[in-house]
């Protein structure tokens, strides 16, 4: 640690406080807006302290939704988003772990070809392949299903690559010791590789959960029924088009709710997350 003098400490703190203010102020305003009545928002000035309608607004959002959006309750939207985020996160981790395991520990024909195919897909963002993917999902009759929502997003080159790099750092002798001990490949995977990847998995889970939760374009395409709406899409639909009045307090309540799960995931997994990013456990 570099030692700092008094005034430098003050400057550091000022900069940090300014940074926090920049980040936190909009969130605070959103929170305030979610606790007041519609009229308080529409008429200037913007209120600076929370109003009395906290429970009314959140209750309305959670249970009834905003009328324009075919009135899907936010609770259902959150459930949809949660299913999507969890399936994508766990699915990606499972698939990537297994494919990285195959690429690193097995010698099969065209092994490098497969590795490079996976690697090349890193360069193709979802948007590039979104139309053919839509065609396939539609053809399989998966529109408006959780499967259609999640499966196309599960295949992941990034995570495969990450686990490959990690597996390469695990000493070969560990695999050989397990072989001498009589552990087959799957036993080695489950008993040795998986526990060693624990922190990496946790870090990846945090990233992927947020990635899944924030998906916009794909759910927009494959879900048309109100009961399948995810919360990120839902917020957009709540904002009334044209001359209709948007129910801003409820919309703000919804955005606050939409923020909650990712925040909780980060807060509860922060310790493992940081460990996974900085430390390799060997």
């Amino acid at each position, binding site marked *: 640690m570099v030692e700092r003098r008094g005034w430098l400490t003050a400057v550091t703190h000022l900069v940090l406080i300014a940074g926090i203010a920049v980040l936190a102020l909009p969130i605070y305003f959103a929170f305030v807006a979610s606790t007041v009545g519609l009229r308080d928002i529409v008429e200037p000035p913007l209120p600076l302290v929370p109003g009395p309608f906290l429970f009314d607004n959140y209750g309305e959002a959670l249970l009834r939704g905003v009328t324009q959006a075919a009135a899907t309750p936010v609770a259902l939207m959150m459930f949809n988003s949660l299913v999507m985020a969890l399936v994508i996160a766990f699915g990606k981790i499972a698939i990537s772990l297994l494919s990285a395991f195959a690429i690193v520990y097995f010698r099969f024909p065209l092994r490098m070809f497969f590795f490079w195919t996976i690697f090349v897909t890193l360069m193709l963002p979802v948007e590039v392949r979104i139309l053919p993917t839509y065609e396939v999902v539609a053809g399989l009759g998966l529109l408006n299903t959780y499967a259609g929502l999640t499966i196309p997003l599960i295949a992941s080159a990034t995570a495969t690559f990450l686990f490959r790099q990690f597996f390469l750092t695990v*000493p070969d*002798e*560990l695999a*050989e*010791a*397990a*072989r*001498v*001990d*009589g*552990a087959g490949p799957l*036993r080695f995977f489950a*008993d*040795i590789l998986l*526990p*060693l990847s*624990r922190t990496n998995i946790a870090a990846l889970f945090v990233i992927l959960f947020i990635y899944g939760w924030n998906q916009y374009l794909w759910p927009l395409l494959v879900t048309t029924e109100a009961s399948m709406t995810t919360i990120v899409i839902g917020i957009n639909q709540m904002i009334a088009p044209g001359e209709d009045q948007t129910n801003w307090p409820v919309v703000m309540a919804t955005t606050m709710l939409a923020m909650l799960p990712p925040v909780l995931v980060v807060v509860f997994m922060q310790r493992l997350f940081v460990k996974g990013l900085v430390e390799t*456990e*060997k």
Partner: protein
Amino acid sequence: MAEVSLREVRKTYGDVKVIHGVDCTIADGELLVIVGPSGCGKSTLLRMIAGLEAITEGEISIGGRVVNDLEPAERDIAMVFQNYALYPHMTVYKNMAYGLKIRRMSKGEIDARVKRAADILELGELLERTPRQLSGGQRQRVAMGRAIVREPSAFLFDEPLSNLDAKLRVQMRVEIKKLQEDLGITSVYVTHDQVEAMTLGHRLLVLNGGVVEQLGTPIELYERPASVFVAGFIGSPSMNLLAARVVAEGNAVELPGGDRLPLANGNSGGQAGRQVILGVRPEHLEIADQGPSAARLTVEVVELLGADTLVHGHFGNDRTDLTVRMGGIHDLKHGEVLPLKVSPDHLHLFDSGSGARL
């Protein structure tokens, strides 16, 4: 308890020959050390016995059973790796128990075996620690414990002491020797360290470039090295190897400077006039106080080790380098000239072309 035998074992990677036919039988309870410089194929050979490398040609059997096509786990061997290869997320206890658990041994039996091994290796206090909380020497013991609990037909050691500091290495060397003798389990031990090889092995197999240079007891290797390579490899400081010529009468060798050394009777073998490589161990050169001396050494560097003194110098017209080891402390000065002699019994002659012993 088993005999391990290798018959015409060969290994090739594509066109590259790594092991050129090894024949060797390791008796029940014997400790064979495979020794050689790095890249000589010694680890490959061990890994072939373990089943971690495929055998290109030949046959390996353990306890009378050909194991060529068996998985490592089916060969009834246990291996100690150079970097120990302990499972980092398991406690010492679990590390040792893992192999037994996979073999579906009963909990009670596992517990008994682990406790017994822990007693032998003095690991009792450490059973609940993870490998990262252990020192190098302790990790080494755990790796040994993992091998012991298996009660295998054979132990395979792959340079197990090379990651330890010098003092600990000597201590563990003694422990391994004791342990191996107590348990009486056939063992194959790979090392590049000739001191380790000499002190541990009942027999040594010297490997060079995938070819067996010599197989024999440590004393055989020291007293009658079969080739220039073995002569230079075994013994520390290493043997002096000089270009020389057997004189016309066949009863002496002529050194580069023109000095002559008489040969013991059996040593000349009709090699009169032939160019040879003469080997003399530094510890067999003595100062000739009186009588004829063989060579006059001009002292260059003196290393005082306490127990003995190493003198490096040169002799003869073309300043041939020579090392002499003398017991005790000798206060010698740079440039001083020492008359040296050597008993004819301690001369080794090698063919200057093939390097084979004459």
